[in-house]
């Protein structure tokens, strides 16, 4: 196993090195005792290769972003219930925004730049870091510790950072900002909205994608997927591939909705689950394409 066990470093050295340094430098700065939970076992840092040792089956979801390293500290209380603090260095604030937004569902927790808390799971982003604090034990008993730990981590994560500029392309009317996601890969798309079993949009690490939900006047929102390809030819190929490979649902409520795609230059915009073709058309027309 290629993971490294951390040793305490001098605080001054850590502070000096931290601005652009490794997540291991965070170790001495972070609490080891919070609300009855104490650090248990050595801290661990994983990189893009060793992350598989830690995330059983989920590593690719984070490798689909510009993940650099993960800092992990485990805590236990007297009853042996574990809390896992994971700090993901995503390389940039935009990538951290992506890692956070691809799994966002719970109410705001007021921690870091954007956050959410649901039973047993605190997630937030700050600067170039995405942070997950979890327990698989009694969620109610752990809630105070999860929140306090999150608040204690934020001051050590460096400056805040901007979300992806591509977000500015989204039409604002009806936009559900807390249901807006940024990603690159088909792994993330299909975890948000199942489109097809194959990668019919040819998504890869160099494609920038926004998936946003819009109030469509009913129970099911309309969804706008905006993809920026590296160049126009790749967008053209993806447009053709989508037209050939996508088949909308033909049963259930989704079967009564509309899917519509439009390409402009190296951008491909697709509206899914729109209540009408007119709704989809209006949403596509309102996209504010960046000047490339």
């Amino acid at each position, binding site marked *: 196993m290629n993971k490294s066990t951390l040793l305490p470093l001098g605080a001054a050295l850590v502070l000096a090195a931290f601005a652009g340094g490794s997540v291991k430098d965070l170790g001495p700065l972070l609490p080891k005792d919070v609300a009855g939970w104490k650090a248990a076992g050595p801290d661990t840092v994983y990189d893009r290769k060793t992350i598989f040792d830690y995330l059983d*089956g989920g590593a690719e*979801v984070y490798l689909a972003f510009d993940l650099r390293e993960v800092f992990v500290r485990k805590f236990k209380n007297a009853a042996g219930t574990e809390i896992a603090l994971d700090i993901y260095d995503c390389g940039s604030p935009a990538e951290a925004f992506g890692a956070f937004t691809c799994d966002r569902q719970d109410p705001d927790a007021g921690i870091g730049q954007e956050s959410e808390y649901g039973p047993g*799971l605190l997630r937030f982003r700050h600067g170039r870091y995405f942070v997950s604090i979890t327990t698989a034990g009694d969620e109610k008993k752990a809630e105070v510790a999860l929140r306090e730990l999150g608040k204690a981590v934020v001051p050590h994560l460096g400056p805040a950072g901007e979300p992806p500029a591509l977000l500015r392309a989204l039409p604002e009317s009806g936009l559900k900002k807390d249901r807006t996601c940024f990603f690159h890969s088909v792994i993330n798309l*299909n975890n948000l909205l199942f489109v*097809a079993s194959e990668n019919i949009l040819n998504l890869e690490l160099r494609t920038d994608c926004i998936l946003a939900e819009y109030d469509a006047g009913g129970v099911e929102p309309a969804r706008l997927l905006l993809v920026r390809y590296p160049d126009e030819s790749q967008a053209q190929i993806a447009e053709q591939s989508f037209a050939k490979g996508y088949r*909308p649902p033909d049963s259930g409520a989704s079967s009564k909705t509309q899917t519509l795609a439009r390409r402009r230059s190296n951008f491909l915009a697709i509206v899914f689950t729109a209540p009408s073709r007119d709704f989809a058309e209006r949403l596509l027309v309102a996209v504010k394409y960046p000047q490339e």
Partner: protein
Amino acid sequence: MKHALTRRDFLRGTTLAVLGTTIGLPRLAPAQTAKSRVVLIRHPEALDENSQFNEKIIQQMLDEAVMKLVDAPDPIAAFRRLVKPEDVVGIKSNVWSYLPTPPEAEKAIKRRLLDAGVKEEAIGLDYHTVRTNPLFVKSTALINVRPLRTHYLAGMSGCIKNYIMFDVSQPAHHPDSCADLGSLFLLPQVKGKTRLNVLCVLTPQYYGRGPHNFNRRYVWNYKGLIVGRDPVAVDTIGLHLLMAKRRKELGPAQEVPPVPKHIQIADTKYGIGTSDPAKIELIKLGWAEGILI
């Protein structure tokens, strides 16, 4: 371009036809003519009021399910149709920390193997080291037991995926939504040895959150076991259960866990079982409340 499976295909259970006509690969085993029997058994007391597993009830559920599976009059006779006293039997379990195979299910299987005449020293239980475990290396029979849960890449972790530790590299199976997991059943250490698949749906997980893909909110007390000799048919029923639960809790847009195509490909490319609902005989026993499928 090969034809992509869509949500519609998973909903209809027509993936066999789609893949069969588009992947263009030969079957590695003869087409089956008889239906694959799968038994779903549930019991309201499989978990107690504190969500602790009830060993006695789980033994009873396993017994009834296997008896029905092989049409045997009692549990010992049923297991004797699956294993011989001279067999060396590896029980491939699962130890994922958040949702491991319940020890009560492991014990129930081992108890009946002993009752069927298999020697205790010829029964092994393992998770991560099956590839090098001496007993598994010389095994003549395998029993496959694990819980049902969703998975970020494969869509679903079931009996097919449970054999991933038999290969040298696990990440090597991750590309394309773990499409080729069915190949695990053709590894020399595994091929032709699986006598029973037990997919524990006592507390299945229908959705995953966070880096560890686990949160107790998405685990429910279904109190069942899905049992069969065909791992593909067992997982097909498991997938239908997951989809039914996801549709109910998450809505139609998230009904299909992304992307469980390895189940169909285990059928159409590797020929290790059937994923076609029309070729699966599903027998439901026991508690029916909230059965979903």
